[in-house]
């Protein structure tokens, strides 16, 4: 039951929507970053699933590998930025970052 493609696709779609909601409705920036990670993992899950079930070649898995690398890089940079924000604004609540508006 768990080894056909559509199962994985539904899980990745679930992961994707969870990630989106996390990004939209969480106030803490770290939580938002986690949401982003969720979205990236959903995509890599997709890649792996498609590669495993529909394709003979391993391009999908390679792509998933790269996604992990990129996700790591992004996380590092994002956290550095959040740290800087914390130093200047004493909070990491995304609502606070609204000085720039019209």
């Amino acid at each position: 039951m768990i080894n056909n493609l559509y199962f994985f696709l539904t899980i990745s779609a679930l992961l994707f929507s969870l990630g989106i909601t996390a990004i939209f409705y969480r106030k803490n920036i770290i939580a938002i970053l986690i949401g982003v990670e969720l979205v990236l993992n959903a995509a890599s899950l997709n890649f792996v699933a498609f590669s495993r079930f529909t394709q003979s070649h391993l391009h999908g898995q390679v792509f998933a590998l790269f996604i992990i690398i990129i996700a790591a890089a992004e996380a590092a940079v994002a956290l550095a930025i959040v740290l800087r924000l914390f130093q200047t604004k004493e909070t990491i609540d995304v609502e606070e970052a609204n000085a720039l508006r019209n």
Partner: protein
Amino acid sequence: MLETLSFILPELSLTLTLCTLLLVGLKFKNKFLLYSLVKMGVLATFIFLVWGGGGYLNSVSIFSNSLSIDPLSRFFKILILFPTLFCSWFALNSYELHEKSHIEALLLILGSTLGMFFLVSSSDLLMIYLSLETVSIFSYVLAGIRKKHALSNEASVKYMIFGTFVSGGMLYGLSLLYGMTGSLNLLDIATQLKDYNTHDFSLLFISLLIFGGFAYKISAVPFHMWTPDVYEGAPTPITTFFSTAPKVAGFAVLIRFFYVVFSTQMTEGGVTIWATTDLHWPEIVALLSAITMTVGNFAALSQTNVKRLLAYSTIAHSGYILMGFVVLGVEGLEAVLFYTLVYIFMKLGAFFVTQCVGNKFKNEELSSFKEIGWKSPLLGISMTLFLFALIGLPPTSGFIGKFYLFNAALHKGLLWLVIVAIFNSVVSLYYYAKILKALYLEKSEKEFSFTLNFFDSYVLVFLSVAVMLLGIYVEPFIHWVKASVYFIVG
């Protein structure tokens, strides 16, 4: 192996400059030394681009079809070099960047340029995603380069959150596309998609998700909200870089991706045009282009911060360029290429003048522009030329660019889009004239004198001449654009 390396000589020379700069930067902080290094690196890349690798006609695709070296990518690479060259000089002279962060700025700009070089010539999904992400990551850091400045941090946070979300979405779209067609290379995807009944909902959703990813890069309507805040927050040289280089790269990858994957190339009456199957994405993009223009222009009407005003004008110009993109014809492509070429110089000029005024008064409000036209005639005249180019008034290159776009759009019969565009360019006069009004027509309260050092005036003269030359002696540039419309993916 060696001869494939020769194809990516430009990228290699860029990396070499990056590394030497890294090493030299540790020891020496002298501004002119660093800048001469960057200059040499960019010059080398330029030389390699123009004469080295890939030859003129025989474009080749290397690294198992993930990078294609062809006239289109060469054109865009040359275009990207200009912002790099100028923005690094602007960064070294801006009041916003502290002495210590000069070297970081240069490195990040060069890194981002390298990412764009790959983005422009990438022809498979993985390479597109990788290069896109490199550019984005470098940009997030670039946005937040002013350590102690709250606005700069906020800008980078917003940029980061917005960027990651959208590229995540795009990635999800790419994964579905991969799933649907089973291959990463654009050409294979295109052939697979041919025999796929394209009218169902999923392909439209995928195309919109992917378009979202690129729209964020060129700040087109659905994903343009970040641009004003980030541009205002980031230091001016960085904003200049953001508003020129990534736009060019964004359009390059947009063309390559959409003209291959979502449309089939045909030649009709000797003219190659791209017909789309019944997937209506051109209509959507045309609508988006009209909305982008209108949003960009109308929002700019009531701005008092010049940086924010120019940010909205960037959105508006993306809307204009999208108009050429939607035409799906060789003429449309030429118009896009020419307009990006012309657009870069206008935008660099306008931002540089804002920076010079910023250096003097420590803020970029419209009120600090008062009576500058009188105090330093060169600044006044060059700013007038840039603004008239941005509006699209004839003697300047902006007009030829707009004429090219309107000509292509009208040839396709998009009369309604042209009318929206001309309506917008009239509105654009209104807010650009606000700057002109401040420069010349208003008396400033405080008494001040304004002098430009040699380098700044040299740069201003160069940019003004570029903007006017492209308006008057246009023939060679049109030939260059016509020659570089040819691109391969496979």
